[in-house]
């Protein structure tokens, strides 16, 4: 790739010696932002990296020097003009193996168009390596229409078409060929189809799957807020400015992040944090306060994950605490000086005894440990931290069962330890109350996390239930939008999970299902006409009275691992599909290749997007996940048509 750019030139310069040893020349092996021009010498669209006018991002190149040589200077040129770094915001770092990483931090460009990026790296013996790539600065059209003051991203993690259909069949019902009622999501007027590939695979995970909405760019699987580099340091990657930071800086908006997952998890973190390791734990949570509260106007953070916020030593007898290592997975963060200078962020520290909850409170946050804490808010709070579980929050299936009957606690759930966890719609309500206090508006991400997690687990009843919970959060946002018309609502996913399809309906009652011999369970699946219209009953709390109805809906999994199928709800929570119902269900063998695959997996299938409110009209057609970011920013910056 880069050899055609630099190899021939170097060979010409160095004469016979270089011809005799064609590899004795420094080469640029990576150039960030990523581009097809650099990787495949292809200058045609689509351009891989695209930014808003004035959106900040890092320029980075990896240079392989000759053995024993060093790289002494590196110049980045955009359309032929050398880029000057702000004081301290550049570095040339030896990264081992005669490799060097050169960076300029916090670059931005305000002129729309495709730009050519050239890096010229000079070796200690004056040999020069070059690499050529490109990136695009998007144009924002100043429209006559009003701007989206508030932007709400609702991400049903792993939610493909079938997850929505299943939620609709169960919560709304269908008869005589028509749905009895639409989901809240269905009432949003604009629909699009989103392509979800990540930078390094057709199948994305949740980190790039959310990063794309927050930055407008592609990331490698496992990475968020950054482009890939060649160092092992998980905190030094080239960064891209998040939407929250950009809108805080340019419009004074506030940021909210709400999830049913551990807030350290990929989807919430991809809206505020920059790391090449989505599992970086303590450091990710520290960055919420140190960077996002300071620079992104983060005013609401809610979900699970309290374990990352507590001091390691704690008081006597304390049984939770932070990771205290900066080197292993799950470590704390320290960022290099060029990142600090280029992004106006603190260095970070390995501080296992930090009391992060107390630090949030010192920064003005109201802390709610449970639903009672949320309900005790006075209404005057402008900053809200809610941490409702040590890890991921329990799912709505178990939260609702416990609310209906306090004695109902599924083995494997944490309901007994955290009995008062809010539902996503309750968290959404409080988040909207807090964020709507800002006269400049807000951007918020609300994630239904366990639609994905329980689809992985092939626990049909639990992911369907959480898809219903997610729809109720959407309904809260739609009601907010009705009262605040300058609000844009985008409901989508990050990827499809588990290859779900609704393949039919049971031909027997639940009682008959329970007494069906394991060997005959396969025979109860009714397809075509025999699927009929499964009918569920909705209780006063808005959720199904039971998921185990007669003639129930039947779900198939195409992205599956082995599982034992009973076609009934699992009395226990989060039990491995290979360990669950081994005597009561029949074995459905998985098609996933590879070692250790113990759950269903993400697929590359396109995902649906529904939008409503200010600027929603743009979200139609089939488009890339990064396009959604630019459509939303057009509405926020340039206004709707």
């Amino acid at each position, binding site marked *: 790739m880069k050899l055609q750019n630099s190899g021939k030139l170097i060979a010409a310069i160095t004469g016979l010696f270089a011809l005799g040893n064609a590899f004795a020349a420094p080469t640029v092996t990576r150039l960030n932002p990523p581009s097809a021009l650099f990787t495949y*010498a292809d200058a045609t669209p689509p351009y891989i990296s695209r930014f808003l006018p004035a959106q900040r991002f890092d320029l980075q190149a990896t240079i392989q020097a000759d053995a024993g040589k060093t790289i002494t200077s590196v110049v980045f040129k955009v359309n032929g003009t050398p880029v000057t770094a702000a004081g301290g915001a550049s570095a040339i770092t030896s990264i081992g193996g005669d490799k060097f990483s050169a960076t300029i931090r916090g670059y931005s460009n305000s002129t729309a168009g495709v730009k050519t990026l050239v890096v010229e790296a000079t070796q200690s013996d004056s040999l020069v390596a070059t690499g050529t790539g490109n990136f695009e600065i998007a144009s924002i059209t100043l429209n006559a229409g009003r701007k989206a003051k508030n932007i709400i991203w609702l991400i049903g993690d792993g939610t493909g078409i079938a997850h929505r259909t299943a939620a609709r069949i169960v919560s709304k019902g269908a008869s005589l060929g028509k749905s009895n009622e639409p989901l809240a999501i269905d009432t949003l007027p604009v629909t699009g189809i989103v392509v979800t590939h990540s930078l390094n695979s057709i199948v994305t995970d949740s980190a790039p799957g959310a990063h794309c909405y927050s930055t407008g760019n592609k990331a490698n699987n496992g990475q968020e807020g950054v482009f890939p580099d060649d160092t092992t340091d998980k905190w030094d990657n080239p960064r891209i400015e998040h939407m929250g930071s950009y809108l805080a800086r340019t419009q004074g908006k506030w940021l909210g992040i709400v999830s049913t997952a551990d807030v350290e998890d990929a989807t919430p973190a991809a809206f505020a944090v920059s790391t090449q390791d989505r599992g970086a734990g303590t450091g990710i949570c520290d960055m919420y306060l140190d960077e996002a509260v300071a620079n992104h106007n983060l005013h609401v953070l809610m979900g699970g994950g309290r374990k990352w916020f507590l001091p390691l030593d704690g008081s006597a*007898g304390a*049984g939770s*605490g932070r990771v205290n290592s900066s080197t292993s997975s*799950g470590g704390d963060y320290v960022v290099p000086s060029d990142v600090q200078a280029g992004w106006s962020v603190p260095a970070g520290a390995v501080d296992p005894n930090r009391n992060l909850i107390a630090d949030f409170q010192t920064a003005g946050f109201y802390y709610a*440990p449970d639903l009672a804490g949320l309900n005790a808010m006075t209404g005057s709070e402008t900053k809200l931290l809610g941490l409702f579980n040590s890890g991921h929050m329990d799912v709505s299936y178990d939260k609702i069962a416990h609310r209906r009957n306090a004695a109902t606690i599924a083995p494997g759930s*944490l309901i007994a*330890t955290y009995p008062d966890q809010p539902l996503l719609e309750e968290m959404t309500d409080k988040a909207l109350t807090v964020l709507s206090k800002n006269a400049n508006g807000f951007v918020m991400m609300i994630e239904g996390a366990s639609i994905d997690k329980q689809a992985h687990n092939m626990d049909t009843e639990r992911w369907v239930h959480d898809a219903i919970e997610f729809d109720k959060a959407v309904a809260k946002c739609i009601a907010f939008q009705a009262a605040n018309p300058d609000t844009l609502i985008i409901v989508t996913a990050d990827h499809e999970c588990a290859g779900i399809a609704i393949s039919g309906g049971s031909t027997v009652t639940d009682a008959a299902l329970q007494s069906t011999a394991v060997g005959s369970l396969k025979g109860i699946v009714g397809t075509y006409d025999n699927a009929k219209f499964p009918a569920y009953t909705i209780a006063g709390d808005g959720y199904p009275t039971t998921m185990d109805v007669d003639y129930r809906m039947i779900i198939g999994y195409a992205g599956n691992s082995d599982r034992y199928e009973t076609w009934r709800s699992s009395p226990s929570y989060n039990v491995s599909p290979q360990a669950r119902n081994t005597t009561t269900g029949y074995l459905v063998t998985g098609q996933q290749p590879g070692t250790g695959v113990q*759950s269903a997996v993400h697929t590359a299938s396109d995902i649906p997007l529904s939008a409503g409110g200010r600027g929603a009209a743009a979200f139609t057609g089939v488009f890339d996940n990064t396009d959604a970011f630019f459509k939303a920013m057009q509405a926020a910056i340039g206004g709707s048509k």
Partner: protein
Amino acid sequence: MNLKSLSFVLPVILLTGLGLLMLAGKDAATVAQNRDSDAAASAVASPVVPYEDSSSVALKFEEIFVMPAGPKGLEYTAKAWALAGKRVALTGFMLRNDNIDPAIFFFCETQHAYDEREEGLADSLPPSLVQVILPVKKNSAPAWRQEKLTLYGTLELGPRQEQSGRVSHIRLQCDAVTDAATGVPLELRKPVALQLGRAIPIPNDLGALPPSTTPPPFFNPRRNRNSTTHHPDKL
């Protein structure tokens, strides 16, 4: 380094070179039927003697932390705290995961699987997860078993940073593993080379997923584009 290749190559070498390991291979598989037949065979061969340890106090998972949790961190119960440093018996299930560790496995109340690639440390594991430490047996590691087990050993409480990045809060220095139903002692440690499909954990500075490099130039996903500009195949 990719350990999948290692776990593929090693058994080939060992199986051809060491006849002894062939014997172990018979029960290395974690398939229920194999285990059952093994257990049955040994039951026929010699009378089963259930493990006895009257000095151990039975501790349940729900007795480890105060429930419900308060607004801050989890707290150990008085019972658990009083048992720290003493012999306990714990009944539950092995966590099923990909990674092999020569000494350590995780133990919980219900049958969990842990997919490190998918979950990282934002996992769905219960806080009462017990890190069990077994004496190391050369070239062996604890292999997953499905059945309910009772473990005996010394309880350790308090946070400790583990190499994996995890902070453990409950540890068991385990000296006896038994089938919970029968009390029959079990050997969990099986030759590493025969635990196909599992990986030896590596220091994970690169994150939950290894960083992917750009595909080399001979593999060009853009080559089927109808492009008149630069084409790598022509370079």
